[in-house]
Every structure is written in structure tokens, then in C-alpha cells.
């Protein structure tokens, strides 16, 4: 792990990320910065599924549920305690607790992968229906109304620690993009650690990992909890960004969207889901500008094309293409002097 800290790839990623974050607000319009902020938040969510599914091999349709729980926990805590600090804390603790309960029964109860996917989807749908029934005035937690299908409006924005002043558009961008970069780099380190390497081995062969003496249940639970924490934090930023959180975060459509980001970007990589999310979100926004067009149909066709042409996703395809190119050059290189 310490080696990874000094690795050129890691340092380059950190440097490039910092430069991008610092430079973008200098020339981009406020509108673009505002949009990029939410892309960064959604990309953090994509990253969390990239970790749990791509690295841990656990396909959950419920990653959005942790995002939604994080958003609601942030909204309720931030409204009641007047500040984003308690909100952020709640947005991480609540999804992690929920993941601990689900994960305990799924992994220690030896539930198969397919049932795990079904259970995670079911949890999302239960939350969706549950929140939708809370529209009456009686449904409130402290000063926060749950709002049912209307959601919770006036969610407090992010503020600097120990200061009441809310962040500006630019400040929110720095926070959201900073979260994405920090999570990405932290997960890169995690995947280099013993824990991360064992998690990947469990994905490859649970049987062999067990025969080597690894308690695979703990590794699955661990990676699931980390994924829930990241998704929860992203949910908090999402609610703070739009000053709103509603039950749509628990819908099937949203759950499916995250899977599309991850698949398009590339399963088994960390940067892939981030790129997949940015590409899909930017395309959706761009297609939305054409009057009379339906972005969903165009996106659906694009996705089908991508799955058929790039079955492994954008990043793995690019990687193997550059790998082939390098090998071809290396193979061609020595021959030249002889000729």
C-alpha cells in the first residue's frame, strides 16, 4: 500500500485530479460548474458500485438505496441540528448500519449471489414505497417533514466546518469533486492493501480463498460496508447540492442507471464507473437540449451498441488496445536495426 502511494500512476492520477478541480472553475461557466458538481456526486456513487460489484463481485441493485438513505439521513440531521457536519455523519452511519444488517444475513447466512441481488432490489423498493406513504404532516422527524412523494425541500447546503456560511457554487464544486477524487484515491490504495487483494480473490474464487484460510464472509461484509459508506456520503452531497431529496432515489430506474454507468465504463476498474457516469450524464444533458427528442431512447440504443461493441466497457477496452499497441511496438522495435 505504501508502495502504491509512491507509484507513478497513483501520483499522476492525484496530480491530474487536483489540476482539473482547480482549473475548471477558472474558465467554465457557473452553469457548467453546477452540473459538473452533481456529476461528481453521481460518479462517487458509481465508484461505490464499482467497488462492491466490480472488485467484490457482489452485484447489488440496492446501491442506490444506500445513496438514498444517506440523502435522507443528511436532510433530516442537517435540518434538525442546523449544519452539514451532523448531516454528513448521519449520512454515513445510517447506510453503514443498514448494510451491516443486510450484509450479515446475506453473507453469514450464505445466501447465493442471485438472491443477494434480489434482496438488495427488494430493500430499495420497500424504502421507495415506505417513503411514498409519509406525505402526511404527522410524518416528521424532529423538525424535518418526510414529505412522502414530495420529498424534503429546503435541505441545508454544505457549509465549512465550524462556520455557518454555506458554500458557494464553486465551493460546492470543490467539495463534490474533492470527495470524488479523495474516494477514488483512497479506494486505489485500498485495492493495493491486503484487504483489497483478498476481496478481489474472493470475487475470482470464493472456494479457493476459503481453502487458503480466508474468512470470505468478513471480506464480503467489509467491502459491502465501505461501499455503503461511500454511497451514503454521495447521497448527502446530492441532497445538499439540490437542497432536496425525494423518493425517486429508491426507484428501479435510478438503481438501473448506476448499473449502466458501471457496465459502460468498465467492470473491474475504479476509473471506469467514473467515466461511464460522466459520459452518460453529459450525453443525457446534451440530448435533452434537442426539442422533441427522447434522451432515454437514444441512450438505450447507445447502451445496446456499447454492450455489443465494447462488452468489457470503455476503460478495459482502451487498456487492452494500448497494451496491444505497446506490445506491437516492442515487437517491431528490435527488428528495425537488423533491417
Amino acid at each position, binding site marked *: 500500500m505504501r508502495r502504491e502511494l509512491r507509484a507513478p500512476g497513483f501520483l499522476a492520477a492525484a496530480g491530474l485530479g487536483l489540476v482539473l478541480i482547480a482549473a475548471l472553475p477558472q474558465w467554465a461557466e457557473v452553469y457548467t460548474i453546477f452540473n459538473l458538481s452533481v456529476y461528481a456526486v453521481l460518479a462517487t456513487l458509481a465508484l461505490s458500485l464499482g467497488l462492491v460489484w466490480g472488485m467484490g463481485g457482489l452485484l447489488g441493485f440496492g446501491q442506490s438505496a444506500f445513496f438514498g438513505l444517506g440523502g435522507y439521513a443528511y436532510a433530516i440531521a442537517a435540518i434538525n441540528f442546523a449544519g452539514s457536519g451532523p448531516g454528513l455523519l448521519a449520512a454515513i452511519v445510517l447506510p453503514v448500519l443498514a448494510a451491516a444488517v443486510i450484509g450479515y444475513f446475506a453473507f453469514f447466512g450464505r445466501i447465493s449471489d442471485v438472491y443477494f441481488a434480489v434482496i438488495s432490489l427488494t430493500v430499495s423498493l420497500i424504502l421507495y414505497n415506505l417513503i411514498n406513504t409519509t406525505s402526511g404532516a404527522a410524518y416528521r422527524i424532529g423538525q424535518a417533514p418526510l414529505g412522502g412523494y414530495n420529498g424534503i425541500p429546503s435541505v441545508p447546503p454544505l457549509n465549512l466546518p465550524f462556520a455557518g456560511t454555506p458554500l458557494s457554487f464553486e465551493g460546492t464544486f470543490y467539495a463534490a469533486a474533492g470527495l470524488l477524487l479523495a474516494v477514488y484515491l483512497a479506494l486505489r490504495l485500498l485495492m493495493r492493501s*491486503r484487504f483489497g487483494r483478498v476481496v478481489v*480473490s474472493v470475487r*475470482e474464487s470464493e472456494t479457493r480463498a476459503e481453502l*487458503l*484460510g*480466508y474468512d470470505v464472509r468478513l471480506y464480503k461484509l467489509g467491502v459491502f460496508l465501505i461501499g455503503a459508506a461511500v454511497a451514503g456520503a454521495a447521497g448527502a452531497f446530492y441532497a445538499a447540492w439540490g437542497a432536496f431529496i425525494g423518493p425517486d432515489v429508491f426507484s428501479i430506474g435510478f438503481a438501473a442507471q448506476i448499473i449502466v454507468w458501471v457496465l459502460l465504463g468498465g467492470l473491474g476498474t475504479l476509473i471506469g464507473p467514473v467515466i461511464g457516469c460522466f459520459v452518460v450524464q453529459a450525453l443525457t444533458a446534451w440530448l435533452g437540449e434537442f426539442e422533441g427528442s427522447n434522451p432515454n431512447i437514444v441512450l438505450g440504443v447507445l447502451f445496446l451498441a456499447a454492450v455489443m461493441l465494447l462488452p468489457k466497457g470503455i476503460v478495459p477496452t482502451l487498456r487492452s488496445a494500448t497494451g496491444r499497441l505497446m506490445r506491437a511496438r516492442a515487437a517491431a522495435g528490435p527488428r528495425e536495426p537488423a533491417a
Partner: protein
Amino acid sequence: MSAAFLEARDLWRTFGGVAAVAGVDFTLAQGELRCLIGANGAGKSTFFRMLTGQLAPTRGRIRLKGHDITGRAPFEVARLGVGIKTQVPSLFEGLPVAENLWLAARRAQGARRADAVTAELLEELRLARVADAEVGTLSHGQRQWVELGMVLAADPELLLLDEPAAGMTSDEVEATVALIERLRGRRTLVIVEHDMHFVRRIAEKVTVLHRGRVLVEDTMDSILSNPAVREAYLGSRAGGLDG
């Protein structure tokens, strides 16, 4: 408390009313090398799967170094010092060869030794050239070596090898025999093998399983001249026994 290193008593495993293992008694001393033979369906692999904790016995007890390991999880059994090379190689297919070995070494030998053990084994097993290749892209023989390497990297006290020479070239078989000779006496080994030439070269004592039971347990020479064994093998592998 028994003095045996590994002891199975009246071990049964039934699948839907069919007994794959039907009352096996098996005792192994520390440092012993035992070969396990028997026709297909004799219960060898099921027996192995019970020893590693992958299958819980329907009846009976298994003791390892005085611990009752009956029904324990595979990772717990592995931590007591049991390593297995399965019949169908069980590997981390999508990971490089070196990573496969490292994961085995890291668990059993700790962070300080893991890198060194991995490097040593890559050299020793002639896998250094394919260290960065994904295991899934290797030939069958090389995959066998990777799995053997994983077992060695964990350096267990008890090694269970299920058909270690299957599908290997004659050179590779020679190397496997040499490897087993090196381990003889230093580690306790149980080897399942169909190739009678191979068994003859390495075996001290052979246990013959037949229809889920121990048919006979003796030296290889006595086994070969035992009419009951010939009877049990007749048809499918009688020719193999003469080899």
C-alpha cells in the same frame, strides 16, 4: 486424545439416499505419505471435501492434531494447517500467477515473508516467465503447477493432492515426483492418483476405497496382488493395475 495426526472415524456422507462415503475409518501418522486409490465414484473426492470442511459429514468424526474439525468451515480447517490441490484446479483465474501465490503465502506466512516466498516459488516451479500472466490463459500443466505452488506457498502441515499428475507431460510428472520426494517425511501427505506407475513410485502405504468404504490398506505390492482389489477394479481399470 489420540496420537494420530489425522483420524476419521465411521465417516459417512449421503447424497439423496446414496452413500458416497459409507463408514470410512482412516488414520494417518505425522509425516506419513499415503496414497488413496479407487475407481471413479469410490468416494475419494467426497472424502477429501469432508477433510477440508467443504462438505459436512452426514455421520462420523474427523480429528486433526487432536482438534475435532467435523463440520468446521474450510477457512478454519485451512488455518489448522491443511492445504489441498483439488482435482479440477481451483484458482483465481483472472489474477496473475504471482498474485495467486502471494495470496496463499500472505495468509499463512504473513506480510514479511509473502513477497519472498512468492519469488522463490516462481523460480522453483519454473513459473517466473509467466508470473504476470493471468492464470486463466495458461496451459493445463502450468495451471496444475500454479495450484501446487499455492499449496506450497501456504506451507501446510497436511497436504491433500487430488490427482496431481493428471494431464501432465512426462517431464512434468517427473518434476511432481521429485517435489513429493522432497516433501516426504517433512510434511504429511495424502495423494489421490489414478496413474499406477506414479503411485508405485511414491507410495509407502496405499488405501483402496471401494463404494465409499476402505477395501484394503497395505503396501503397494500387496495391493497389486490382492484379489479383492483386482475384483474391485475389474472392467474399468484392471489394465491400469498391471502397469
